[in-house]
């Protein structure tokens, strides 16, 4: 009949079970790495925060490592300013591209814009920073004054850098809307733009918000480009044209030569950054899953 003895069958079963177990172990590699990263960053970074007090760490407005003054407030503000600036630029441009890509362009045009967006995503951050240094910073300096290395420069470059994120996720959420929504609206006599404005954008709202939040996460986490164009002065920027230092720059600039408590303070900066990013990403994922899973009505 095609039976196997008890031993052979158990071997087949055992092999299958071994494969499944091996793959399970492999599958947990991502989770394990995440856990290890969390553990190590926290382990290295938190002792000094408690030594100097969380409040002085977060709210202190001076950063003089040589004198053991570790106040992260200027960098926190810097990160916030620069990220907000990036959103101001990135979201309108990004949404515009997404809408044009999904609703207003022919197949041929789409075949041009889509690769362009993907190419934008592939350009290394150091190249973006370089372009900022060579083109944007002098332009700002000559047109608006100030050192050129500024919040404005960082915002513009970061805004460009997060475009692919916002565009691709927004495109996905717009494309996920069933054609019947569009057809129904057009059938009622609406123009394409009215359809977009009143039917599609609201329907894609969770996805678009998720893309914005993920874009924010990218902007906050960006290091190399910001270091090159933001000026890196460890003080709260007074205007758009003032130099600024972000949390990421703080780490990258001084890590090379920091030692002892200074180094620990940089790890602590990493902890703060890590927490912010984790919160942002969780919020983004929750919003995104609402886009995928819970459409009502």
């Amino acid at each position, binding site marked *: *009949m*095609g*039976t*196997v*003895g*008890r031993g*052979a*069958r158990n071997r*087949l079963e055992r092999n299958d079970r071994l494969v499944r177990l091996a793959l399970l172990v492999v599958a947990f590699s991502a989770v394990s790495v995440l856990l290890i990263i969390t553990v190590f960053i926290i382990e290295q970074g938190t002792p000094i925060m408690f030594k100097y007090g969380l409040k002085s760490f977060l709210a202190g407005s001076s950063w003089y490592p040589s004198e053991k003054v570790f106040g992260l407030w200027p960098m926190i503000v810097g990160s916030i300013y620069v990220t907000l600036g990036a959103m101001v630029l990135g979201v309108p441009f990004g949404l515009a591209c997404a809408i044009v890509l999904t609703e207003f362009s022919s197949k041929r045009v789409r075949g041009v814009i889509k690769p362009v967006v993907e190419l934008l995503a592939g350009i290394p951050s150091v190249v973006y920073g370089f372009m900022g240094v060579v083109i944007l910073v002098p332009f700002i300096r000559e047109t608006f004054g100030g050192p050129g290395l500024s919040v404005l420069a960082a915002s513009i470059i970061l805004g460009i850098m997060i475009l692919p994120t916002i565009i691709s996720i927004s495109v996905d959420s717009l494309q996920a809307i069933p054609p019947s929504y569009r057809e129904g609206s057009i059938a009622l006599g609406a123009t394409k733009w009215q359809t977009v404005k009143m039917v599609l954008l609201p329907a894609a709202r969770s996805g678009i918000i998720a893309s914005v939040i993920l874009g924010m996460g990218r902007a906050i986490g960006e290091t190399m480009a910001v270091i090159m164009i933001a000026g890196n002065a460890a003080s709260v920027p007074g205007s758009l044209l003032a130099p600024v230092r972000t949390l990421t720059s703080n780490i990258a600039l001084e890590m090379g030569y920091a030692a002892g408590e200074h180094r620990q303070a940089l790890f602590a900066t990493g902890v703060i950054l890590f927490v912010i990013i984790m919160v942002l990403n969780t919020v983004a994922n929750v919003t995104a899953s609402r886009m995928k899973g819970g459409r009502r009505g």
Partner: protein
Amino acid sequence: MSGAAIEVRGFSQDFGGVRKIHALDLDVHRHEIFGIIGPARSGKSTFLCALNRLNDLVRGSRHEGSIAVDGSDIYAPDVDVVALRRKLGMVFATPVPLPRSIYENVAFGARRAGIHGRDRLDGLVRDSLEKGGLWEEVQDRLGTSALKLSGGQQQRLCVARILAVKPEFILLDEPTSGLDPISTMKIEESLRKLKKDYTIILVTNNTKQAARVADRTAFFLNGGLVEVGPTAKIFTAPDDKRTDDYLRGKFG
């Protein structure tokens, strides 16, 4: 060997608590073409997939009762399911050639069974394609992609594919439902020739096909067996009124 080729006793199958087949009792005799007719959702395909335990792959599947092939219970604990599926080869409603060459499609099952070596495989492929009625049309392009064949050719390829693993039974689930009349005729012709060496179970929603080809026919309704018997009798003088109604087209 005495006894029917397949003996089904009180067999029921559930998926996730929903019962799809109720307490089936039937026999399939060796070297016959056994037809199964009935309206949609009557459990015909489910029954077929129970015979080669393909239903086991569905999460939450449970069964009761027994199915014996050649006298052995196919659900016994020491059964080699992989060998069972070679023994009962299945052809599906939509031809599904794998995305590879004609040769590789036919050789696929044999390779998995451990048969290697160009000579053996060459002979096996040719033999199977001949029995499946496809050899003449493809003999000089065995290396080309199977996806380029017509629907009817693809289905004959699927028959050849299972023949290559030397089954004893051929299970066909509405094999010609999407095909043109000529391909349908060619496949029915192959089945008549194959009956000599194999036992064939043919599920079809085309009652005329069962009338043309099957030796005995069973009528399924709502997951249960209504009636089974020689095809001629089922079609001319069925015992059960429901069978009669179905054949007259009063429902289905």
